[in-house]
Every structure is written in structure tokens, then in C-alpha cells.
């Protein structure tokens, strides 16, 4: 049971309400909306990350699932096992990413494996070896690498909030994958 009362979309700022409804009116948003003086900015930041055309959705979901697994967030895992399916990941791929070590034997590309390794090393040791970092940076470039790190950052921080508030997984509502901004 969620430890605090949910806010209703009608109680949010117009911008926050619009973003909450666009993103499926999920329990996570209605719980975090209790922080009404900072919730709108947090929603805006998330929307920008979801809408950016830079980091491929498939790679983003790799990072989100791995982060959710390592941060032990049942809510993020519950949402993103389904979001990842919509993004084209197979069930086997999702199971591998959300396991202790099966992902290392899975049929992923070298970049995907490097990204999973970086996420794992960062969340378990709080740092990354220079060699592994350079491998990801060389493959993705600076812009996508910074976006990737910000996805880890956001979902790791969010996992803490979800676990602290013990937010219940939504019964059926899932985060929609929004249309992306046109690539520049």
C-alpha cells in the first residue's frame, strides 16, 4: 500500500496535469505530486528525456530496466517490462537484462553490452572505469552519452522515491511511448 495519499490531476498546475495525463495518469505521478512546489519541474525534465530523439528507445529501455533491477524497484520493473515490450524488446531480452548475470551471455550487440556493463558498474560501485566509459562514449558520442547518464540518474533517483513511498504498481495503466521530436 502506498504510504501517502495520491493527488488528483485537478489539484496540479496546468502544465503538470497535462503531462501527467499525457503520461498515463500513473500512480507514481499522483504520489510525487504531493511535492507540489517542485513536481512540475520534475515532470518537465522527464518529458524532455522521453521526447528527445537522440538516445534510441531500445537502448533507453535497456538502461531503465537495468537500473530498475539494480535499484530493486518493483514499480519501475513493473512498468518498464511492458514499456520495453512496446519498444520492441523480446521477453527473453527483458528477462536477461533484469537478471544477475544472464545478460552477459545474451545475444546483444557490443554497444548494448557495454551500456549494460556501464550501468551495472556505475550503480554498484558509484563509478566507472575509464576504459569502459570510453568504449560507450566512442560508440554513442557525447550527446547521447550524457543523455544515457541522465536516464540512469533519473531512474536511480526515482527508484529511491518509489521505494520510500512504496508506490503500488498501476493495475493496467502503463507509460505510453510518446512521439519523439524530429531529429535535427
Amino acid at each position, binding site marked *: 500500500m502506498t504510504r501517502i495519499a495520491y493527488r488528483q490531476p485537478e489539484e496540479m498546475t496546468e502544465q503538470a496535469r497535462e503531462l501527467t495525463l499525457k503520461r498515463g495518469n500513473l500512480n507514481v505521478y499522483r504520489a510525487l505530486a504531493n511535492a507540489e512546489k517542485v513536481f512540475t519541474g*520534475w515532470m518537465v*525534465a522527464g518529458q524532455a528525456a522521453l521526447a528527445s530523439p537522440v538516445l534510441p528507445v531500445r537502448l533507453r529501455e535497456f538502461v531503465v530496466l537495468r537500473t530498475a533491477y539494480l535499484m530493486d524497484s518493483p514499480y519501475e520493473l513493473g512498468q518498464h517490462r511492458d514499456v520495453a515490450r512496446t519498444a520492441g524488446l523480446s521477453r527473453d531480452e527483458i528477462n536477461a537484462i533484469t537478471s544477475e548475470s544472464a545478460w552477459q551471455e545474451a545475444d546483444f550487440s557490443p554497444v548494448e553490452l557495454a551500456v549494460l556493463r556501464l550501468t551495472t558498474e556505475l550503480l554498484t560501485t558509484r563509478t566507472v572505469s575509464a576504459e569502459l566509459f570510453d568504449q560507450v562514449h566512442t560508440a554513442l558520442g557525447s550527446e547521447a552519452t550524457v543523455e544515457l547518464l541522465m536516464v540512469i540518474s533519473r531512474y536511480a533517483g526515482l*527508484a529511491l522515491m518509489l521505494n520510500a513511498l512504496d508506490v503500488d504498481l498501476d493495475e493496467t495503466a502503463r507509460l505510453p511511448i510518446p512521439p519523439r521530436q524530429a531529429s535535427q
Partner: protein
Amino acid sequence: MSRIPLVSVEQQPEPMRQWMARRGNLKVFRLLANAPHVFPAWTQMVDELFESPTFSRRMREVVILRVAHLQGSRYELSQHVGIARNAGLTDQQINAILDTDHSDAAGFSDTERTALDVTTELCSTHRLRDDTFAAAQAVFGDEALTELLMIISCYYGLALVLNATDLDVDGTARFQP
């Protein structure tokens, strides 16, 4: 040496140049500005966290320093020790927050102790026990407790970005809270 090149402020669109003029010409901003699709929205989030009247500057810095310490973020500490001092924390209190066990330090209010307990338990175990949560909810109420979590979340996540990129600390530039 930062593992990702920092963009120059002059290359930034006008709103971001103005934002950095207001908040400080920090390396972390020039790092994140590599991602122009997400950086401007991130600055809005930061503004709301620091403009909110819910917590005193001092309380915010207590939490930020504790997160920075637990995440091993040299960069966050380099910025926020000075800010914490300006916000009224003594050197003894700052050292206590940066110690393994903050509880024996004199001079923290009960509210600050509660915030430190929440921060320590959440960052170290990724969750809160029922009694820790109940104590914090009684002290802060739902709105302030959720906002406290937002501060922890922001600095916990940012520390990962800073550590991964091995960002050098700033010379004299300081964040303007």
C-alpha cells in the same frame, strides 16, 4: 580530466547563457549542456528545487551534503561545503555530516536529524523501514517529505553522472542557490 568535453557558454542559446549567468558558470552545466534536448528542462527542475520555500537553505544543504558524501561525489562536495557554511552550518556540523555516523554530532535540530536518518537509510539500503518512514511523515507531512525525497533523488542521480564522467571540480565558480 573530464571524460566528456565541456561545451563553451558562448555556444549556448540565450536562455541557457542567462541561466548560467544567474546560477554560476559551472562545469557540471557545461557538461550537461552536451545534451540540449534535455538540459533546459533539467534547469527548470533545479530552479523549482531551490526556489521552493518549503525548506530552509540550511536544511537543504544538510541533505545535499549527506547525499554527496554517501555517493562519494567529490564534485558535489566541492560545491556544497561552501554553500552549507554560508547557510549557517558550522565546520563541526559539516564534518559530522561527512562522517560515517552523523548521529553523535551536537547542534542538529530534531528535524535535521530526521532528515539525515531518512537520507542515510534511503541512500544506503534503497528503501525506508516502516518506523523510519512514519517518523519522517510525522515530522514533515506528505508535501515536505515528498519534496525531501526529490532533493535526495536529484543529488543521488547527479552524483552518478559526475562520478561517471570524472568531472573536474570548478576553480572559483560557485553555484548560486
